[in-house]
């Protein structure tokens, strides 16, 4: 009985007692739900670093939104979305029209955007509010941010249901799709748009840098447990939601800042999966090597 009480006090009570904990959890679960499949697709499409690039590409747009309209969720979201899509479009264009590889042109444009963003922020002396926004504050998620995050997650899942097939086919049979439409096809653009929308939602809660962590770490970790895309997505989404839950508890009980706690829990899950996963993990490799030796 006392054990049950202790468990309740440790694992549930913070969420029962405090509205801000519930909101933070809902935000993490929503981000995880759409982040799972998106992150998985990024990993299988070998675009793991594109998430990072896009998150940085948001910066100048969010900064301009902030400068024009102050601490306005809409202005910063729209600004960030436009800036990141512009970087994606420019990078895609350069890839199509020159012999430059997509990762190289992405790197070039996101670095320009990042430096532009830092420049904008620094020249406006009173950047404190903006810094709080860029590093996020999951504990301060308000109604508007929560609706944005939940809305983005819902729309992303619906749209992914439509475009997932061509995206997946392309990973495994690029020749087929190139014959039909090529990598610059509409589904790729839609995919990038969803990615940016999710990062815009995530940066309201976790900040640009931490949002990528919650997107990518579960997706990479899931690879040690499953192979087909559906299962990968589900596992990644579950891991992301759990990271949010456990990270918030960690922050609550150990007085640690919340954003990094959540992402570090996701990092811990990745390391555990790397060691103990059922597919291609260190353990399964070692196991197989031993079996070979015995046989």
């Amino acid at each position, binding site marked *: 009985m006392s054990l049950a009480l202790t468990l309740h006090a440790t694992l549930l009570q*913070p969420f029962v007692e405090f509205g801000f904990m519930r909101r933070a959890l809902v935000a993490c679960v929503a981000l995880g739900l759409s982040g799972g499949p998106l992150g998985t697709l990024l990993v299988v499409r070998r675009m793991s670093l594109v998430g990072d690039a896009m998150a940085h590409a948001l910066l100048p747009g969010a900064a301009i939104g902030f400068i024009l309209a102050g*601490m306005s969720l809409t202005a910063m979201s729209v600004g960030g979305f436009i800036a990141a899509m512009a970087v994606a479009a420019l990078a895609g264009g350069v890839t199509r029209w020159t012999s430059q590889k997509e990762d190289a042109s992405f790197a070039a444009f996101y670095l320009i955007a990042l430096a532009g963003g830092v420049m904008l922020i620094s020249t406006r*002396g*009173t950047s*404190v*509010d903006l810094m*709080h926004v860029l*590093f996020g504050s999951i504990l*301060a998620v*308000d109604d508007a941010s929560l609706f944005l995050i939940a809305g983005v997650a819902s729309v992303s899942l619906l749209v992914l249901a439509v475009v997932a097939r061509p995206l997946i086919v392309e990973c495994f049979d690029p020749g087929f799709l190139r014959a039909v439409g090529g990598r610059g096809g509409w589904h790729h653009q839609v995919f990038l748009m969803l990615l940016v929308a999710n990062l815009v939602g995530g940066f309201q809660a976790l900040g640009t840098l931490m949002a990528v962590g919650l997107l990518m770490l579960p997706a990479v970790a899931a690879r040690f447990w499953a192979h087909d895309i559906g299962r990968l997505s589900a596992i990644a989404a579950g891991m992301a939601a759990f990271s949010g839950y456990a990270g918030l508890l960690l922050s609550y009980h150990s007085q640690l800042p919340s954003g990094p706690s959540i992402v570090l829990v996701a990092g811990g899950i990745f390391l555990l999966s790397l060691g103990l996963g059922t597919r291609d993990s260190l353990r399964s490799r070692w196991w197989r090597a031993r079996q070979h030796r015995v046989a």
Partner: protein
Amino acid sequence: MMRRGQWIVMSAVGAAGAVASLFSGAAQAQAAPRKLRVVASFSILADMVREVGGGAVEVSGLVGPNADAHVFEPSPRDAKRLADADLVVINGLRFEGWIERLIKASGYRGPVLVATQGITPRLLGREPDPHAWQSLVNARRYVENIRAALVAARPALAAEINLRSADYLRRIDTLDASARARLRQIDAADRRVVTSHDAFGYLAESYGVTFVSAQGWNTGTEASAADVARIVRQLKGQKVRAIFVENISDPRLVQRIAHEVGAQVGGTLYSDALSPPGTAADTYLRMFEHNVSTLLAALTTVRR
């Protein structure tokens, strides 16, 4: 070759100009004493120096209005301003952690006035609380220190500087008396408010207002869920009257907490920086008056 020729001509002209301006500068310096160039570490100190020095000084502040001195990142221009200064005024009490490195990097070798010298700081744990200007009693000390440093740098202008500082001290005393009188009208038990960063300890001590803070004393750290939970619990238990947003920290967190405990957000208090020129809190005294009247308004309207 043409280009090189042009370059030589241009540099020669430039050099001649520089030499000429050097001479004219020297001539001016003899005619009237050059204004004392003072660099203050942040906007509140800069305003105090301006009040005391008047026309004798040319003041610039490193950390500007509405910016946070805890997390300031100096630019090369700031280093240059320091290098050109005749006097540097800092708050001390570890408020500007970056200032010593910046002074060293700029090559400035002149006097550095620590404006809080002579003030016994409150302690936050084992660290001194640097926000000493939040009490007008301490502000007298600041003004006295600034006056002495300016007189030492420009003995010829001592009379004018002393006159200005006496006048400034009178205005400080008047505000101090009125702030005390007005806050006394509210029951001590009801003078209980919340801010997002622990910057009002001196105000609390001097004027009997209880401040509960949501973030520890440093705006550079991100609040943990534990901190916010502690505050929410505390506020629900203590029936806090009003919650305030500061001009330099994340207003969303304060709003969230207010929502959680069902309290009102009482307006903006200015802690570590003035507001931009031409707005409500653009001088130290106006800032203090703004804080006191905002506190009063919130405490009287919420009381029902």
